[in-house]
């Protein structure tokens, strides 16, 4: 186990390095124009461009530039050029809202994804299965912002069932916290529910043909017990794998949802920075986001190896 952890963490460090270099290349090297001009954004004037060039060392050789960028991002020394704010402080301030959104949405989509997947696998080919299939395919094809627009216009502006955006601290008022988050949760969860129910359905249909399921039936276990204890358990493995990947990458969805519902978290900050073509905040969010994903995936892998000895002992696919 220890060796697996060390190997996996070593791999993680290598990927983190590669990811940071890629971010650096995207923001500072690939586009043809002067990065300082891009960073200065709409309010560019020669003095500002000059000071940005000096601050970020855009005249230095590339490896030096890379080090400067990493140092600035990780010492919290990045300043946005649109609002002249400390970017890292803003990101830290946004953590509670973004985590509330992501965790709540994840709970909802896991619950309904598993429920719908289970129901349509048990009743495969039946009417319920077909109805759920239609719902799932529609969910998979749904642009997030369309769902957000529908909710906003009908449930917030027309009927005023839900408050229009904003984020209320949980410590301030748990009820209002939830009230403000219901629409964002449901919107974000919907795009995943369809996919998860399809994955669970097909993985359950696979497992149903396994020998041990036949054995369980043969020894006279009830259908419900066979389904929950034998089929479900093993079918959940692919679900948990993709959940690990999706949850880490949720910042992408959060940008849209928070922008739409003005949630005042990291996502909304990114959304506004994008609208203003303000580069430093986006650069920092992308870097932290990618790091979080890589870290999260490594932790998921380690958790797996701990649960399933075949992974840490067996020959790895790579």
């Amino acid at each position: 186990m220890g060796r697996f952890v060390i190997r996996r963490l070593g791999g993680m460090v290598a990927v983190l390095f590669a990811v940071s270099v890629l971010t650096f290349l995207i923001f500072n090297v690939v586009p043809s124009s002067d990065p300082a001009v891009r960073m200065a954004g709409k309010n560019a004037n020669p003095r500002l461009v000059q000071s940005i060039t000096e601050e970020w060392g855009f005249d230095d050789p590339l490896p030096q530039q890379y080090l400067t960028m990493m140092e600035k991002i990780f010492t919290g020394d990045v300043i946005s050029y649109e609002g002249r704010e400390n970017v890292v402080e803003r990101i830290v301030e946004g953590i509670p809202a973004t985590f509330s959104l992501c965790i709540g949405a994840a709970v909802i989509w896991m619950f309904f994804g598993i429920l719908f997947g289970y129901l349509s696998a048990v009743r495969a080919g039946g009417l319920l299965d077909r109805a759920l299939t239609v719902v799932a395919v529609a969910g998979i094809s749904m642009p997030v912002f369309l769902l957000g627009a529908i909710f906003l216009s009908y449930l917030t502006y027309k009927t005023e069932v839900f408050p229009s955006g904003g984020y209320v601290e949980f410590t301030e008022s748990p009820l209002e916290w939830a009230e403000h988050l219901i629409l964002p949760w449901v919107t974000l969860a919907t795009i995943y529910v369809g996919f998860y129910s399809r994955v669970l359905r097909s993985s359950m249909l696979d497992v149903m043909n396994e020998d041990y399921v036949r054995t369980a039936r043969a020894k006279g276990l009830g259908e419900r017990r066979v389904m929950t204890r034998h089929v479900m358990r093993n079918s959940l493995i692919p679900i948990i794998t993709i959940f690990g990947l999706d949850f880490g990458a949720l910042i992408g969805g959060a940008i849209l949802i928070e922008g739409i519902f003005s949630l005042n978290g990291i996502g909304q900050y990114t959304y506004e920075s994008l609208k203003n073509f303000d580069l430093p905040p986006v650069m920092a969010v992308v870097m932290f986001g990618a790091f979080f994903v890589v870290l999260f995936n490594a932790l998921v892998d380690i958790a797996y190896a701990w649960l399933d000895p075949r992974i840490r002992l067996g020959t790895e696919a790579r």
Partner: protein
Amino acid sequence: MRVVSEPNAEEAARAAAGSPWGLAWRRLRRNRVALAFLGLFILIVAFSLAAPLWADNVAHSGPNDTHTLEKLQVDGEKREVVNPSGRPIGAQWLEADGKFFLGADGRLGRDEMVRLMYGGRTSLLIGFGSALITTVIATLLALLSGYYRGWTDTVISRALDVVWAFPVVLLGISLGLTLAVGGLDIGPLHLSSSSIWIPILIIGGVMVPYMARPLRGEVLSLREKEFVEAAEAQGAGAMRVMFGELLPNLASTIIIFFTLGIANNMLLESTLSFLGVGVQPPGTSWGTMVGSGFDLIASAPQLSLIPGVMILLTVLSVNVFGDGLRDALDPRSKLRLEAHTGIAEPEGTAV
């Protein structure tokens, strides 16, 4: 050159019944839901292609023509395109002879219907173009790394891993943002910051690992098959094995991936454009229309809902048709399902 002298009809019939493509085609033809959604998709494409016809002959306005201060003459009554408080006119349907069929798009008073049709062209073009790029690059990488294995495979797989580690949306917005401000200038390639090629290349590139990885796995397993050995024994070189032997066997998977890729890429395009880092003005796509309509979501929700629904319908039709295509080309998945449950899926269900 072989001369075909057999009675053609008989041979054609045998070919249609026996060849895998003929079988797939017949399976697809039985799948009415998939065909219906293919029809819907064709309608949407036709709708978008008809944009200049509508613009010139009915609306008499281009997608970027502004009509802020103009008034419409409807039944002897004058209607302002944009009223003094900045609220755009609503849908006129055919009351103004087709002008402002869906109303105006905001303060600038542009014809929403014309923009919707032109926006569809952009969205579809990016969906198709980027899916094509993804498919070509992913197939080449998969063939190279699956055929040569060894260090070629290591280099390609590691590079894909790094891109894979990035959440798609984050990678897309990073590239979209920097290229929207700076344009692209690599070697002979010069793209201005508002070029439609930028979103096509970004989306096409970002999606590569998601297609290349499963294809590589398939190449790796195909490579162990006897027909590859046979070809090599006959002296076939690397090119011949990759493109003459392996590629045809990948064809059905590639077709399925390409089709579903169009749907996926259109969703990503709409997301990036909605965030303002996809299609840049003066270009219009359905995503940019939803994005700009969002400012008026409280007073004129149709401006974001209509293009949003168009995206949904297009992506849905491609997804359902793509699923039907998969069932037709790769029926094993269906057979497996039947074996497991003892229930054959009713004929005509798409997914």
